[in-house]
C-alpha cells in the first residue's frame, strides 16, 4: 500500500525532467525580456535627458535644423534641431525602397510564377550571396564606385542622398525579394488553378489574383526593407557626406540619424549635453523601428481577415 502511495506522490524521473526544462526555458525567456526592457529603459532615460535637463523643446528638436550642442539660444537652451538628419534618413529610406520594390517584386514573380526552376538555381543563390555581404563592403564600393559615378553624371561632390540611395537599394533588395518570394509562395495553389479554369492568361492570373492575394505579404516585405534601410549606419555614413544641413538636392552632402551617431560617438563625453543629444537620436531610431514593427504586425493582422 505504502509502496504505491510513495510511487504516486513522489515525482517521477520524467516529470522532474519536465520541471527542469520548464525552469530553464522560463529563466532564459526572463533574461531576454529583462534585457530588452532594460535596454529600452536605458536608451529612453538617456534620450529624454536633453528635454528634461536642458529644457530643449521637443517640437524644436523635430523641426529645427541647427545641430550644435555647444551653442545656446537666447534662453540658454542648446541648439539641437534634428530635422536635417530626420529628412536625410527618411529620404534615403523612401527613395531606396521605391527603387528596390519593383525589382524585388518582379524577381519574386519570376521565381514563383514564371520559372521556379531557373529561379531556384540562379536567383536564390545570388540573393543569398547579397545578404551575406557585410555592410562595410557595400560602403567601400559606394565610396570608390558609386560616389565618383554620381559626381560624373550629376555633378557636385558625389556625396549625398543619391549615392546613399543607390547603396541602400542594393542592400535592401535581397531582403525585400526573399520576403516577397515567401509571400507569393504562400498564395494557395487553388487560387491559380481557379483563375486558369475561368480562362485567365498567366499575366492576368499574376496581376489580378496572385499579387492581390499576396499583397499583405508584399507590404510586410517592403516595410522590412524600409526598416533595414532606416537602421543601416556604416555604409550610408561612408557615402552620404555627413553634413548636418538640410539637403538642398539629392547630390548635396546630407546626414542620417545613424550616420550622425556613428560619426560623433567617439568625440563626446558621457553625461554632457552633446552626448545626451546623441542618445535622443538613438531613442528616435528606436521609436522608428518600433513603429516599423507595429506596422508589420498591423498589416499581418489585416491580411488574415
Amino acid at each position, binding site marked *: 500500500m505504502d509502496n504505491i502511495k510513495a510511487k504516486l506522490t513522489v515525482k517521477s524521473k520524467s516529470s522532474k525532467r519536465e520541471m527542469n526544462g520548464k525552469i530553464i526555458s522560463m529563466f532564459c525567456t526572463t533574461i531576454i525580456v529583462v534585457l530588452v526592457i532594460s535596454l529600452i529603459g536605458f536608451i529612453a532615460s538617456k534620450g529624454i535627458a536633453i528635454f528634461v535637463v536642458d529644457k530643449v523643446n521637443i517640437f524644436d528638436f523635430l523641426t529645427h535644423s541647427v545641430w550644435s550642442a555647444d551653442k545656446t539660444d537666447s534662453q540658454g537652451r542648446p541648439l539641437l534641431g534634428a530635422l536635417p538628419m530626420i529628412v536625410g534618413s527618411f529620404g534615403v529610406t523612401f527613395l531606396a525602397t521605391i527603387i528596390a520594390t519593383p525589382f524585388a517584386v518582379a524577381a519574386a514573380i519570376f521565381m514563383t510564377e514564371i520559372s521556379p526552376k531557373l529561379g531556384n538555381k540562379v536567383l536564390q543563390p545570388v540573393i543569398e550571396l547579397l545578404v551575406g555581404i557585410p555592410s562595410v563592403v557595400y560602403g567601400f564600393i559606394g565610396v570608390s564606385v558609386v*560616389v565618383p559615378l554620381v559626381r560624373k553624371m550629376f555633378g557636385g561632390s558625389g*556625396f549625398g542622398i543619391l549615392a546613399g540611395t543607390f547603396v541602400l537599394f542594393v542592400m535592401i533588395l535581397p531582403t525585400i525579394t526573399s520576403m516577397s518570394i515567401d509571400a507569393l509562395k504562400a498564395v494557395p495553389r487553388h487560387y491559380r488553378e481557379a483563375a486558369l479554369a475561368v480562362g485567365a492568361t498567366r499575366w492576368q492570373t499574376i496581376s489580378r489574383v496572385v499579387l492581390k492575394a499576396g499583397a499583405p505579404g508584399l507590404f510586410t516585405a517592403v516595410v522590412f526593407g524600409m526598416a533595414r534601410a532606416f537602421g543601416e549606419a556604416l555604409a550610408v555614413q561612408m557615402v552620404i557626406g555627413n553634413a548636418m544641413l538640410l539637403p538642398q538636392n539629392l547630390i548635396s552632402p546630407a546626414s542620417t540619424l545613424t550616420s550622425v551617431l556613428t560619426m560623433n560617438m*567617439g568625440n563626446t563625453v558621457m553625461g554632457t549635453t552633446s552626448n545626451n543629444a546623441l542618445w535622443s537620436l538613438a531613442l528616435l531610431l528606436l521609436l522608428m523601428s518600433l513603429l516599423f514593427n507595429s506596422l508589420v504586425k498591423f498589416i499581418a493582422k489585416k491580411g488574415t481577415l
Partner: protein
Amino acid sequence: MKKTWLLVISFVSLIILTGCGNSKEETITAVGSSAVQPLTEAAGEKYSELNKDSYINVQGGGTGTGLSQIQSGAVDIGNSDLFAEQKKGIDADKLVGYQICVVGIVPIVNKELNVDNLSLSQLRKIFSGEITNWKEVGGPDLAITVVNRANGSGTRSVFENSVMNNIETKSSQEQDSSGMVRQIISNTPGSISYVALPYLNSDAKALTIDHKAATPKNIINNDWKIWAYEHMYTQKNANKLTKDFVKYILSDEVQNDIVKKMKYIPMKDMKYQKDINGHVTPIKR
C-alpha cells in the same frame, strides 16, 4: 544527465578561458586621439620588445573617447589632442597629464588642383564659407568642396583654434577619421581638408600657408602656426607599467627616434610654447 554535465563543463571552461590572460603578462590599454595613435602603437611595440611580459593595447576612438574613458577609469591611458580642461564634462583635476610631443596639422587639397599656397585669411575664409570657388584665390574656376572632421574631433578643434580666429566654420561634409578624409580628398576634384602631419602621404597635396611649408623646422620656430601638443592622461594612482610606459615615450630613445621618424616633433626641440588659450610664447632656456 549528460546535458547537465555539458552545461557544467562549458561554464567551467568559460571561466578558465577568461582567466587565461592573468598569467605573468601585464597589459595596459591606451585609447583616444587618432592623431597620436600611430606613435603610441609604434612605441608600444618597441616597449613590448624590451619588456617581454608587458603588452600595450592601443586603440583609436577619438579625443573625446580617450578623455571620457580615462576619467571613468576604464583604460590606463587616454590620448588627447586637447588639454583636458578644454573638453566639456572632463574634470581635469582628477587626471595627470603628460605632453608627449607636438603634432603639426596641414591643409590638404586634391592633387589635380593647381593651387599651392594660401594666406591664413584665405584659408579661414574658405572654411567659413566666404570663399566658395578656387578662382577667388587664383585657382581654376572650380567649386570648393570643404571636408571637415566631425564636430568634437581633436584635430578639428586644433585646426579651428589656430586658423579660424573664433569665426565659425560653415556646416559641410564631415568625416570621422583622417584616413577617410585623405581618401575623399584624393578622389574629389576641388576638395580641401586638413590632416595631422603623420597622416600626410602622396594621396593628397599639402598646401603652404603664406609660403611656409609644414615642416618640423617651421613648427619648431612657430613659423607654421597650426600645431598642438599631444597629451597622455592617466589616473592619479596609475600602476607601475602605465607610469613606466609614459616615461619610456618621454625618453630620448623614443623622442629622438620614433617621434621624429613619424613626423611628430619632440617636446625638447620646440622653441615656442602654447598655453591652453592658444597664446604662443618663446621658451627661454
